[in-house]
């Protein structure tokens, strides 16, 4: 009961998360596992499928008015793709929506990603509870502002 209460935003609204696969690779097992874990944690999860462009992801995030965007990239093009995604969010005045990234990201790239505006990077093997708690944390912060 306690946990559920934490998940509500506004009057009775659940945390809404967009999970997307950016770029050309078609491996979406990881993204789907995360999507299901977040659902099981009581969130509303929208999965947009593989081979998405940053434009498609941002447009979906705005239409669904999500609280947070989770992106999975395995293709290696993360720096370019994430920069484009953040730029688009900025253009729409929606860069207050936190974005986190999962996938095979070389460690030296993590500071660069954070500089671009990515809130958090989760490497393969991250415990799912950690991702859940992270979302509860950032969405909570956002509500207070």
């Amino acid at each position, binding site marked *: 009961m306690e946990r559920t209460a934490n998940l509500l935003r506004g009057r009775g609204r659940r945390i809404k998360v967009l999970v997307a696969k950016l770029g050309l690779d078609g491996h979406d097992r990881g993204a789907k596992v995360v999507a299901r874990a977040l659902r099981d944690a009581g969130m509303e*999860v929208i999965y947009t499928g593989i081979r998405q462009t940053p434009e498609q992801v941002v447009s*979906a995030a705005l239409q669904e008015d999500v609280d947070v965007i989770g992106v999975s990239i395995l293709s290696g093009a993360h720096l370019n793709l994430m920069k484009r995604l953040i730029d688009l969010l900025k253009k729409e005045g929606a860069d207050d929506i936190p974005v986190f990234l999962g996938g095979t990201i070389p460690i030296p790239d993590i500071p660069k990603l954070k500089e671009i505006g990515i809130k958090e990077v989760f490497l393969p093997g991250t415990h799912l509870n950690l991702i859940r708690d992270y979302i509860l944390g950032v969405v909570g912060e956002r509500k207070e502002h």
Partner: protein
Amino acid sequence: MNIYKLFDDAKRGSKRSLGRLLSILESPSNESFRLLKEFVKHGGKSHVIGITGIPGSGKSTLISKMISAMRRKGYSIAIVAIDPTSPYSQGALLGDRLRMQEHSTDPKVFIRSVSTRGVKGGLSLAALSMIEAFDAVGYDKIIVESVGVGQADIDIMNTAHTLLVITMPGVGDEIQALKAGIMEIGDVYVLNKSDKPEAAKTFEYLKFALETGELEIKHGWTPRIVKTSAIMGMGIDQVVSIIDEHYNYIRENSIFMDKLRDRRLFMLKLLVESLFLDNLDDMYRSGEIEELFKANDYYTSSIKIIELLLKKIRKIDNS
């Protein structure tokens, strides 16, 4: 955040603003009442199309193909995707959007998912409020997808101007099973997945049901049966042109306006229910009711509770 500015921006095509407006409408509040008042002034023009039918029959895939065909005709289109979520799991994995995502960046297409569990004022109220918003913002066509099994689903589908019931080959018995609900009130019956071998038999079954009067003739419109294959793109143009035909038909007589009036009346009833029940729930949880009941009998307690509810509801200010 100024809701009137949001509404203005939404009318000018800002997806960000419309997305936020829709969230405000998910539960009754000062803001949502103010917005609804504004919507009634601007709306009343959109054609609302309900798409319902057996889970997995290809509704979302079909809608995606219909969007392409309707966009070629120049219509702007909003989609309300009501996701059938398991009542047993806490959260929801909303899967309809995935099949329509190719249209995500089209400036004249707006897709919004609504989950059964996510909204406090009730699913029907959230969905109907969103229809009002899309209508007021000026979308030509509003497509509502839902499985049509629960009462809320059936209620929403009943408010559509044009109702499509989607079925697939080899489910004759399930059609029977769904009968109590929505199966016999479609304006158009779509047999999707007709690329499958059993399609001919199910098609005959549907035709038979129509001929023997099992499928209802509403307002003088004889229901149509169409075969489609959403994944192969077959029969889509035919579906879209029948929808146009039905639209012209209901426009020529009073059905379009009657449906609009019924939809808004039904929403009013849902609003009252939501105001009443939410506040009652709060009073019950906070122990207020217990206090009253200590000093009064059942009847007197009831009257006092209702008076208190009215006081609380009056605090909502939509001026």
